[in-house]
């Protein structure tokens, strides 16, 4: 049976760091172009939720029910010991019987989760998210990016066809020390660049040829090729060696940066979003070996309309000063607000209200009036995470405790009913106005006692950002 990609989406955080602004502060480094920066209230779990929501958006309100398994992969998990994918599971309101697993730790783990899903059975949601940090002034800092991607992998069916069918795969594994990071470190370290390059290029060729052989294709039959990995120079060298020319897909290095574990899925998604039926698309990832996947794009892409195409997200966003980036990353310790630290949320209370806290499910009374949060006397749950609303009024709170003051708070009236005073995010104070349209986004309000307090905020609907 044909297996491949049923749905795909990428998520790029709103903020962009202009690399040219780095050197004036750090004394060096930087470069040209921009990188994406996760907001202070985002982590790999929240970005994964956003990507997965976008991926499932095209499947209609019952899309989540079709997911048989969830995989979350990152190098920068919000928790160790505790599974992070369960928060994604809760935010997406996946069925209780759908297992959720982390596949964390290395950049390659994301590709591994994708391979496992493609080789496995059922409909698997593979989410990869990363938050990539380097030391100030270093090349990693400027060349990395933050982001997430979600691929829904499964068998095609008439009512839910594949966007791209897997036609071949090849992998080569080799223990080699090129890039490594001690768990918890803000930076990774690398061996001399030339060593990795000379090792990785032949590994890539080997995986590429293995995939072609399995697909029964020759190199010239591949229309578009993604090459990415943990070694940027090796990726470029491999592209030259394969003589890809125009067939090489933009790796978003100039605008987004390398999003680590998320990058292969992010680039595959952006490629599918701009591919035509019948084209053969290759994904080659260099990380502790090499993996190559070959897909044939189906007719279904002709009628596919991604809710937030990656190209549109690349064009969007807003700048962030380098100092704020350093603050948000914890690399520039600043004086905290002179207010009490927020108390940690109660695990028991959070468990009782998981549908609300993670799933943004309100309630309705007998007359159909929607209540946010849900009211104990109401009988009908009302999922509201995908609702949009308008700002009835708002205020800017320069006194409230926040990891990034001031707090912008809006009273939001939702289409379909319900009102909630809710914090705004990804917003500059000057942009807020009464009547503006907002949508919900899953965020980390604060962390206390090592507990990440996840809940929803609202953000302005991006111009031309789709329903």
């Amino acid at each position: 049976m044909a297996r491949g990609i049923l749905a795909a989406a990428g998520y790029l955080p709103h903020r962009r760091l202009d690399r040219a602004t780095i050197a004036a502060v750090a004394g060096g480094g930087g470069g040209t172009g921009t990188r994406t920066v996760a907001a202070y209230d985002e982590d790999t779990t929240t970005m994964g939720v956003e990507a997965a929501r976008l991926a499932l958006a095209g499947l209609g309100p019952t899309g989540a029910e079709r997911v048989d398994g969830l995989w979350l992969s990152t190098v920068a998990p919000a928790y160790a010991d505790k599974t992070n994918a369960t928060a994604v599971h809760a935010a997406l309101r996946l069925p209780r019987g759908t297992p959720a697993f982390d596949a964390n730790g290395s950049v390659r783990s994301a590709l591994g989760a994708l391979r496992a899903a493609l080789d496995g059975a059922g409909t698997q949601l593979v989410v990869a998210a990363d938050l990539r940090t380097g030391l100030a002034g270093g090349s990693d800092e400027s060349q990395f990016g933050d982001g997430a991607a979600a691929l829904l992998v499964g068998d095609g069916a008439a009512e839910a066809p594949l966007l791209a069918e897997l036609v071949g795969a090849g992998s080569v594994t080799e223990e080699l020390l090129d890039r490594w990071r001690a768990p918890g470190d803000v930076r990774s370290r690398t061996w001399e660049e030339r060593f990795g390059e000379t090792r990785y290029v032949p590994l890539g060729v080997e995986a590429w040829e293995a995939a072609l052989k399995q697909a029964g294709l020759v190199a010239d039959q591949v229309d578009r090729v993604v090459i990415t990995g943990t070694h940027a120079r090796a990726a470029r060298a491999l592209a030259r060696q394969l003589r890809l020319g125009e067939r090489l897909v933009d790796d978003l290095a100039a605008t987004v940066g390398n999003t680590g574990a998320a990058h292969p899925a992010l680039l595959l998604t952006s490629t599918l979003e701009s591919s035509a039926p019948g084209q053969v698309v290759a994904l080659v990832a260099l990380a502790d070996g090499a993996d190559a996947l070959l897909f044939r794009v189906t007719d279904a892409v002709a009628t596919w309309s991604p809710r937030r195409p990656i190209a549109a997200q690349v064009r969007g966003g807003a700048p962030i000063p380098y100092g704020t980036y350093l603050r948000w990353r914890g690399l520039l310790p600043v004086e905290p607000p002179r207010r009490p630290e927020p108390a940690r949320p109660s695990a028991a209370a959070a468990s009782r209200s998981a549908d609300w806290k993670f799933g943004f499910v309100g309630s309705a009374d007998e007359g159909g009036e929607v209540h946010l949060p849900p009211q104990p006397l109401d009988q009908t749950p009302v999922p509201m995470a995908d609702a949009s609303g308008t700002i009835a009024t708002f205020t800017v709170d320069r006194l409230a405790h926040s990891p990034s003051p001031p707090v912008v708070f809006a009273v939001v009236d939702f289409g379909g009913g319900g009102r909630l005073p809710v914090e705004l995010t990804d917003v500059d104070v000057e942009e807020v106005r009464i009547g503006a349209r907002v949508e919900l986004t899953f965020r980390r309000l604060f962390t206390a006692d090592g507990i990440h307090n996840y809940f929803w905020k609202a953000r302005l609907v991006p111009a031309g950002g789709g329903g």
Partner: protein
Amino acid sequence: MASHGIRDRVAIVGMGCTRFAEHWDKGLDDLLLDATGEAFASAGVTKDDVDAYWVGTAQGGMSGMLLAKPLQLEGKPVTRVENLCATGSEALRQAAYAVASGAYDLAMAVGVEKVKDSGYQGLNAFPVPTDGTQRTLTAAAMFSMVAPAYAERYGVPMDELKAVLARIASKNHHNGARNPRAQFRRETSVEQILAMPPVAGCLSVFDCAGVADGAAAAIVCRAEDAHRYTDKPLYVKALSFVAGNGRGVTDPAYDYTTFPEIAACAADAYAQAGIADPRAELAMAEVHDCFTPTELVLMEDLGFSERGSAWRDVLDGTYDLTGDLPVNPDGGLKSFGHPVGASGLRMVFEAWLQLREEAPPERQIATVPGRTLALTHNLGGYPGEMVSFISILGV
């Protein structure tokens, strides 16, 4: 079923109130001893003469032992009560009902708060374990949303409304400057207030209540016994309380230009007291000016100004010390300071002074003795979800 009230059945016969200030040198016990001691002396009684006690504090401690220990009460019933910023008023309400019922002859209500020991500016919520989804907005920010909403609904230019709010703060500072028990005793001009940077919405620190430590106490008995203790008792005409159900916060119809809990509470209070025209009948009002937009809207919710016209009445000086209806002649929360559990009884203390013509001459209101009724209004919570207390007292 009905709210009958206890009009003229209970009297306040003694009161005490500490200065509201940053009492670095006084603890909760000291403040309790100061306020209750003044009240005992005022009524000419001792702690043993009082049959039952209600002590209100929002965060000062738990249980009636909070009062029984510092006063070393022997075998007395003491109840600790809490109702957000209306806590002190709630203590009075319980004490008044207790003597009205005949259960006790003499009861004391005392409110106290020691907020300046926290190490942080402002008021800080008592941490109750939650799921972490609750709003974390400050009270200042919540009430700041009233200002643009009011401006929009009544077509008042925002600059003009800011001047109105500054006028309210300036008036309360003017009154507090004439009150030796007030936290802030400096007059502040409208211009000075308008020059302050915003901290929440359009509100600056000068739009916010003072944060102070303090305590206040009242002794109540049945009306027929009042003259045993004082020649000039203050009779309880109405005690009204409404606890909101929080619907305003989540109701798209709520527009932040009114506090429905207050309007309902006022209707009940006026019915209990038999008041038809509060603006003409009241000699004064102490209202809960936690933030300047709050006082503005209260003028309408309490029926002093027509809807949409309070801002003009403020500018016209209606609520000044020398106006038609002096509001917050003691300086209000703005200038007197706001020790949460004490504020409700502090308001009653000003009615006690003014109606008995014992206020210092420089802030004696001219409506007395022509008028004999005072209103105190005390709220807790936020626009859309608040508790409201109103008392009407008379000589």
